């Protein structure tokens, strides 16, 4: 057998009361793409953070190309030929693409020389970007490309990617996976952390699944099925989700009615949507598909009452519950307790507000109730919201939204970054709200989810809103999403 590119052996790591890794083994062969699967909190990211020198293990050993080493910092790891693409973006918005790459690779910033080096790099990797564009102005997909360029700039031979496709539209995700495959074919080795099963099966040579800090499966991807992977990740077989809800559609009142809306872009430059019309009836769960930046964000936020249309008619039944995409800056205040966050969401109309006074005891009791009812894993209503995992934060936001007894629910990417269990739970809650008579409008960047979970889908592309044909498949929706999408948006 050839010497593995990267070997981790018996890695143990505990964070306070949380045992993140319980003796995990992982081997990455040269020339392969290796998918690392697991639910939220299974230890995937932690294991790769150990390899990249971000986390020091309590026990265990590591070897790079046969040499036993344990990087003490990312700088060490880069010297060993490792590169990492993090889940969140790590570029400096005010710097240009070229400057960000130089910063990360330690290159000189003499403009001409740098430009040429960056262009060479892009040619070599097969990813194109404007080297002079400021990182802050890039689209999500372009930012992700920049992250990969940064990781590869320093001549990395081992690439660690932490859920790189979580925020990408299908076509952008495909491009990214192609780059990763080419990198491996050229003699590199890549670890792809993901919880998308089909992606793992499609893009990876081998897969390793983690559950609660232990490896539960490792082997060639070709020998696996989505079901076998899900079993390895969760232990109890794939989660059961209801699929599309029975469509016994009686004529019901329209709770969201948009007619010929013109919406400004969020950054104020031009129109996001022109002449958008949409009707959602009570009891309907409508999915919104669209490539990032197509105007779905503006549409949802206008319906939620956070932005105003320039023209057109908009009627939305009150109360409206809005679940924003960004859990930690827009949804919740991390420093404040769960109770405070519930109080925040319900405002002055809540049962615990009496003429401007706040009955914290009542708010706290209600929060405790919601924690139990929604199975939120938290130490209690006084725990800071920032201490919860992503899935539990999402549950809290959904619990809070439904606490309003809303007639309209608007949710942005509510399952982003969640594992299958948590995502399933979120969809079931949203479906239950629809069944209870609310009009529910959900945008998801995961097209499979939209197809599977929504009663019907609409597609936002090229500044317009189009209803998808009943029974339209993924390919048809994907084509609609990209339909006439001008390439290379700034």
């Amino acid at each position, binding site marked *: 057998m050839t010497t593995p590119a990267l070997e981790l052996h018996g890695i143990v790591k505990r964070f306070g009361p*949380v045992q993140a890794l319980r003796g995990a083994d992982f081997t990455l062969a040269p020339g392969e793409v290796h998918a690392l699967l697991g639910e939220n909190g299974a230890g995937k990211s932690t294991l790769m953070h150990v390899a990249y020198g971000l986390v020091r293990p309590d026990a265990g050993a590591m070897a790079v190309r046969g040499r036993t080493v344990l990087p003490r910092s990312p700088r060490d790891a880069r010297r060993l030929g490792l590169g990492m693409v993090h889940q*969140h973006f790590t570029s400096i918005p005010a710097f240009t693409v070229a400057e960000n790459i130089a910063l990360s690779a330690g290159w000189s910033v003499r403009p001409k020389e740098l430009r040429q080096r960056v262009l060479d790099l892009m040619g070599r990797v097969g990813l194109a970007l404007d080297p002079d564009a400021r990182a802050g102005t890039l689209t999500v997909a372009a930012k992700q490309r920049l992250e990969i360029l940064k990781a590869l700039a320093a001549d990395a031979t081992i690439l660690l990617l932490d859920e790189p496709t979580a925020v990408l539209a299908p076509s952008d995700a495909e491009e990214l996976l192609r780059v990763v495959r080419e990198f491996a074919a050229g003699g590199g080795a890549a670890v792809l952390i993901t919880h998308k099963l089909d992606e793992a099966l499609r893009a990876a040579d081998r897969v390793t699944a983690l559950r609660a800090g232990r490896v539960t499966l490792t082997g060639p991807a070709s020998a696996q099925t989505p079901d076998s992977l899900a079993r390895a990740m969760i232990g109890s077989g794939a989660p059961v989700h209801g699929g599309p809800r029975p469509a016994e559609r009686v004529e019901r009142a329209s709770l969201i009615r948009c007619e010929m809306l013109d919406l400004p872009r969020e950054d104020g430059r031009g129109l996001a949507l022109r002449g958008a019309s949409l009707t959602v009836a009570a009891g309907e769960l409508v999915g919104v598909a669209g490539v990032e930046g197509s105007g779905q964000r503006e549409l949802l936020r206008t319906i939620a009452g*956070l932005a105003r249309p320039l023209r057109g008619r908009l009627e939305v039944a009150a109360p409206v519950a809005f679940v924003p995409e960004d859990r930690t800056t*827009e*949804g919740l*205040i*991390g420093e404040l307790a769960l109770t405070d966050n519930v109080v*925040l969401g319900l405002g002055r109309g809540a049962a615990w507000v009496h003429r401007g006074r706040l009955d914290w005891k009542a708010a706290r009791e209600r929060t405790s109730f919601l924690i139990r009812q929604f199975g939120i894993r938290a130490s209690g209503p006084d725990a800071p919201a920032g201490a*919860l*995992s992503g899935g539990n934060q999402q549950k809290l936001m959904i619990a809070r939204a439904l606490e309003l007894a809303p007639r309209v629910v608007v949710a942005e990417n509510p399952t982003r970054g969640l594992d299958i269990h948590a995502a399933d739970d979120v969809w079931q809650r949203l479906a239950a709200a629809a069944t209870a008579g609310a009009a529910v409008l959900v945008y998801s960047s995961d097209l499979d989810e939209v197809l599977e979970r929504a009663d019907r889908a609409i597609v936002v592309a090229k500044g317009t809103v189009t209803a998808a044909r009943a029974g339209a498949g993924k390919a048809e929706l994907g084509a609609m999403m990209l339909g006439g999408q001008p390439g290379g948006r700034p």
Partner: protein
Amino acid sequence: MNGTGSGLRAGAAALAIGLLLLAAGLWAAGFDAAAALAALWQGAFGSWYAFTSATLVRAVPLIVIGLGIAVAFRANALNIGAEGQFYAGAIAATWAGLHLGGSSAVVAIPAVWLAAGAAGALWVALPAWLRLRFGVLEVISTLLLNFVAESLVSWMVQGPLQEAKHIYPQSDPIAAAARLPLLPGTRLHMGFLAGIALAVVVWYVFRRTVWGFELLATGTGPRAARVSGRIDIGRVTALALLWSGAIAGLAGGIEVGGVSYALFQNLSPGYGFTAIAVALLARLRPLAIVLTGIVFGALEAGAQAMQREAGIPAVAVYVVEGVIILVLLLAEATGRRARTSVALPDAEADPA
């Protein structure tokens, strides 16, 4: 609460370190450090009279302004202009006090306070409006208005409010009815009680009212507060600034009615700035502000005594104040680092 206990310990330790460094500095400069510290102590706590008439009298404006600063800072509206608002309040209080000769104290004192509070709010109204309308940073606008306020005072005491003989740069004394009652045998005035009552009120507002919560939510998570659709963060910020200015202005009114009885230049030895430290050291907690206000009042009172008795410039005490702030900031920063490393697994699970 747990946090208060550890805060108190850290504060005491910071005070001790500050005093030690002061002693070391004085010793190194050839002063008799023991005598200096003894004078400091005597001046602040040496007698009932020193405690009430020096320490507590200086603590009153620090406490009241500190409460005002806490209101703004809680909403993350950084009002650095309390000094100016204090002077605006003092001007209005003097004007009102000069015109209330015929009325009784029951009318005159509230009228003076009302005028002072209104003037303080008015002084911050421009920064509040600029922030709301154009997003101008209140840190800068409130700071700059301090200089305007100081110039306004010096014009007032040489112009419209100058004493009748037009010799001295100060106003005539305000009417007796507008002066605050004193604790017999001391110079401590009723403003101290008002400060404590105000601390309780602010505490209640922070802890028990929706508006107090809205201040906190706006201060800690402005985007979340806005997206919640329940809070008009512009309005909350502007109101926080206005109330903050009103309270700082009230402090000016209390100072004129309780201590100076007239308007002077340099009425405040920088109370508006020291009070920022007072509020921050108390972590914006109203009841703790009473305590930190007294500690800083004691330092200022002791500094005067030290200058009188041991010939050491009073400014030396700023070393102690500075060290206290540095030590506490350091303690907080290390405490935060300890907390974040424990919170890592969650951050790791969802960095998005």
